[in-house]
C-alpha cells in the first residue's frame, strides 16, 4: 500500500549555539492512506513541532516530509500555501475560527481562499455530518465550544485533504463534547476514508486510533498498532 505521508530523518533545532534546543531528533515514520494515527507525548516532547512541520507552517532544520508524493519543503512559500489549502486540513485546540464569518463561511474558507465555487452539495453533506445544519448561519460566538470545534473539523474536511492534522482537538472541551468530536473524527475516517493524525495526551483518544506513536524528547519511543 502506498504511503500518503512519509517523514524522513526529520530534525528541528530551535536557536543556535549553546542555547539551542533540539525539538525533533531525526524522526522517521510512514502513514498509509486512510490510517488513523495518534501521536502521544508529554508537553515539550516535540509533538507540536512535528505537527507544525507536517502541516507546512514551519520549516525543518533537516529531513523531509513527503505528502501524496510531494516533498513539501521543496515548495516555495506560495506553492506551500496553495498545497496546504488543497491537501492538508488542520484542526487546532482553540478552534481558530474567524469570528466575523458564519459557521458555513468558516467551513468554506479553504475554498473561498482558492477562489473556487462553493460546492453546495459538499457543504450540505459536511454540515449534516458535523450535525450543524440548523446552525450554518451562526457566528462562532453564538456556538458552544464543542460546536465551534465541529465547525473547524468541517473546515478541515471541505477540500477532501490528503491528511487531517488535529492538535489536541479535545483539549479545550468537556467530556461530552470531546466524545462527540472524537466520534466525528472517527466517522470521517471511516466514511470518507480520510487519513487522520491526532496529536494528544488524552489516552481515551489514543486508544481509539489504529496506531499510536509515542514521542519523548524529540525521538519516537514506541510505534505500535492499537490493540483493538
Amino acid at each position, binding site marked *: 500500500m502506498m504511503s500518503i505521508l512519509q517523514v524522513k530523518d526529520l530534525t528541528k533545532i530551535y536557536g543556535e549555539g549553546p542555547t539551542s534546543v533540539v525539538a525533533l531528533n531525526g524522526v522517521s515514520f510512514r502513514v498509509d492512506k486512510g490510517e488513523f494515527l495518534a501521536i502521544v507525548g508529554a508537553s515539550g516532547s516535540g509533538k507540536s513541532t512535528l505537527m*507544525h512541520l507536517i*502541516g507546512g*507552517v*514551519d520549516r525543518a532544520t533537516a529531513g523531509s516530509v513527503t505528502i501524496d508524493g510531494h516533498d513539501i519543503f521543496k515548495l516555495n*512559500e*506560495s506553492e506551500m*500555501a*496553495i*498545497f*496546504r*489549502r*488543497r491537501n*492538508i486540513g*488542520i484542526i*487546532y485546540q*482553540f478552534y*481558530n*475560527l*474567524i469570528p*466575523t*464569518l458564519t459557521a458555513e463561511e468558516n467551513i468554506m*474558507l*479553504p475554498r*473561498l*481562499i*482558492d*477562489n473556487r465555487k462553493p460546492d453546495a452539495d459538499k457543504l450540505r453533506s459536511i454540515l449534516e455530518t458535523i450535525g450543524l445544519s440548523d446552525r450554518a448561519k451562526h457566528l462562532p*460566538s453564538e456556538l458552544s465550544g464543542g460546536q465551534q470545534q465541529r465547525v473547524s473539523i468541517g*473546515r478541515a474536511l471541505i477540500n477532501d485533504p490528503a491528511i487531517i492534522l488535529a492538535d489536541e482537538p479535545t483539549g479545550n472541551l468537556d467530556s461530552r463534547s470531546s466524545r462527540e468530536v472524537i466520534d466525528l473524527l472517527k466517522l470521517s475516517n471511516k466514511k470518507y476514508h480520510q487519513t487522520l493524525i491526532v496529536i494528544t495526551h488524552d489516552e481515551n483518544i489514543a486508544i481509539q486510533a489504529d496506531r499510536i506513536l509515542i514521542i519523548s524528547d524529540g525521538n519516537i519511543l514506541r510505534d505500535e498498532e492499537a490493540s483493538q
Partner: protein
Amino acid sequence: MKLTAKLALSQIKTQKGHTIMTVLGIALSSAMLTATAGLVLSTQRAFEIVLGRDSYTPARTAALIAVGCVFATMIIAASVIVVSNAFRMSASERTRQFGILKSVGATKKQIAESVIYEGVFLSVIGIPLGVIAGLLVELFGISVANNSLGYMYESNAFAIDIRLPFAVSPLMFLLAVAVSFVTVILSAWRPARKAANIAAIDAVRAKGEVKIKNARTSKLTAKLFGFEGALAAKSVKRSRRGFRATVVSLTISIVLVMVAGAFSAAMNATIRLAFPVSGITAFAQFSSPIEYTYGDDSELENINYSTIDAHTAEKIIAKLREYNGVRVSGVGMNNITYTVTPPEEMMTDKTRQTGILAHGPTRAILMMVDGGAYAGLCEKAGVPVGSNILLNTLRFTSDRGKTSVFTPYNFAKQTLTLTGNGAPDTEITLDGVLSSDEIPAEMLSFGQAALMILVPRTDANVYHWYTNAKDSTGFAEYAKSVMAENIGSDKGLPGYYHVSDIATFKLQQETIAGTVMFFVYGFVGMLALIALTSVISTISTNLRARRREFAVLRSVGMTSDGIRKMLNLESVISSARSLLYGLPIGLLCAYGLYSGMRLAAEIPFRVPWLAVAGCVVGIFSITWVTMRFAASRTRKSNLIETIRREGV
C-alpha cells in the same frame, strides 16, 4: 465579494472607533490635497483675469503648480507616516486572523491584499468626504484672502484690484482623488507586506509583531509610583511598537506647532522692526537739501543747507495740534554743522573694542525736542532746564552683521570743543546724561550713532513731528497741508517734507501678515489634526488589544483605580517621550526657519515659549483624555468572558 475583501470589510465594521479615526485622517489629508489643488487653480485664474493670457502664462502656471507640489509633498509625507500607523495597528489586530487564513492555505499575496482592501474601503468613504471638505476649505481660504486683498486695494496699497475666483475643474478633482488614493495605498503598503510576512505559526499563536522583551524598571519608579507605576513603565518598554506609533504622531504635531509658532513670532518681530516706535500713528518730516561745495584741491569748502529753528518747529506743533486737539511731539537734529573728537578717557572699553571712534573726529549730533518734552527729560536727568544732556547710547553693527546697543561714554561734567564745518567752532558743556532706556524711542528713530547731545535749542536740518492721533489718515491729510503752508523756498523755509500714515501702513503690513499666518496655521493645524486622529486610534486600538491583560490584572485583585493609575502613568510616559523628541526637533526646525528669515530682516531669535507651553499642555491632555476614554470602554467588558474569549 472576494473573501479577502469581505474580511477587510468586517474588520472595518467591527472596529468602529478605529475606522472613524482612520477615515477622518484620510478625509483630512484628501481635503488638504483638494484645497491645495483648488487654491493653485484659483490663483492661476486670478492671474489670467488680471494679466490676461500672454506668453508668460505657461511659465506662471508652472511656477504655481510647483508651489502646489511642494505643499502636496508635505501633506502626502505627513499623511503616509500617520495613516500607516492606523493600518499597522489594524493589521496587528488581525494577526490571528491572518494566521488562520495562512494555516488553511492563504498565500502572502492574499493576506497583503486583505490589508490593501481595508485601504480601498476606507478611501471610498474618506476621500469623497475629504473632497467636499476640501472645497469648503478652498472657499473659506479664498474669502479670507479676498478680504485682505480687497482691503489692500481700498487702502491704496495695491494698484490693481486682484481677487481670487472660486475655481474648480474636473482635472483638479481627478488629481485630488487620485493623489489621495495613492497616499492611502502607500500608507497601507508596508503594514500589508509586514502582515503577509508573519510566519503562519507565530500568527496562530497570535504573537505576531509583538516581541516581548524583558523590561527592567528602576526601583525608583516602583518607589515613586508604586506597583502600578512599575507596570506602566514595563508595558511602555515592552510593547514599543504600539507606543511608538503614538509617539511618532505626537512628535509630528509638536514639531508642526513649534514651527508655526516660531514663524508667527518671526513675522511679528519683522513688523515690530519696521515700526520701532510704538503708539505713533503718523509723522511728518522736514528735511533740508544738502549741497557740498569742494575747492580746487577737492577739499570740502562749504556745506549749504537750510535749517528749521525751535520757534518755527514749535509754531508748526501748535498748528498740528489744532487737528482735533491731538497730541503732537517734535524731535529735531542737526548732524551737519559740527564734528567732535571725544577725549580718550571718555570712551568706555566697549567703544574702544569696536574701534568706531578710532578714526578721528566724529559727527556731533545736536538734538532738540519740543518744549514740554525737553523739560521732562531735564527732570529725568536731574539737571535744570537749559542744560545740555549727553544721550549715552550707541547702536553698532559689526562686519558680521551682529547688532548691539551699548553705552559708549563715561559721563563726566565737562566741556567739549565742537569743530564747525563752514561755521565757527564752539564749546559745549555736558551737564547731565541719559542712558539708552531713558531716551524716548522717537529720538532714536534717526539712528544711534556718534555723539548725541540734547540741547535746549538748535537749528535742525531734520525735524520730525509725531502724533498718536486715532484718525491717522485724516491727520496725515491735514499735516500735508500744514507742511505745504510752511515749508518751501517761497515760505522762507527751503526744504522737503514728507508725511507718513504709519498706522495704515502698519495695518496693511499686519493684514498681509495675518493672511499669511491664517494659511500657515490652517495648513499646520490640519496636518496636526491628521496626526491626532492617528494618536486617538492607536491608543484605543492598543488598549483594546490589552483587554485580556486588564482582565487578568483585575482577576488577581487589581482595583479599577489601580488600572486607571497605571494608564495615567502610561500616558504621562508616552507624552513625555514625544515631548522629549518633539521639542528639540521643533526648536531646531524653528531655528532653521529663523535663519532663513534673518536673511531678509534683522530679527532676534526667540524660543517660541507660547508654542512650547501649548504643546506641553496639549499633548498631556490629549493622551490623557484618549486613554481615559478608551479605558472606560474596555472596563465595561465582562471579566471572565474576556479572559476566556481571548484565551490562547
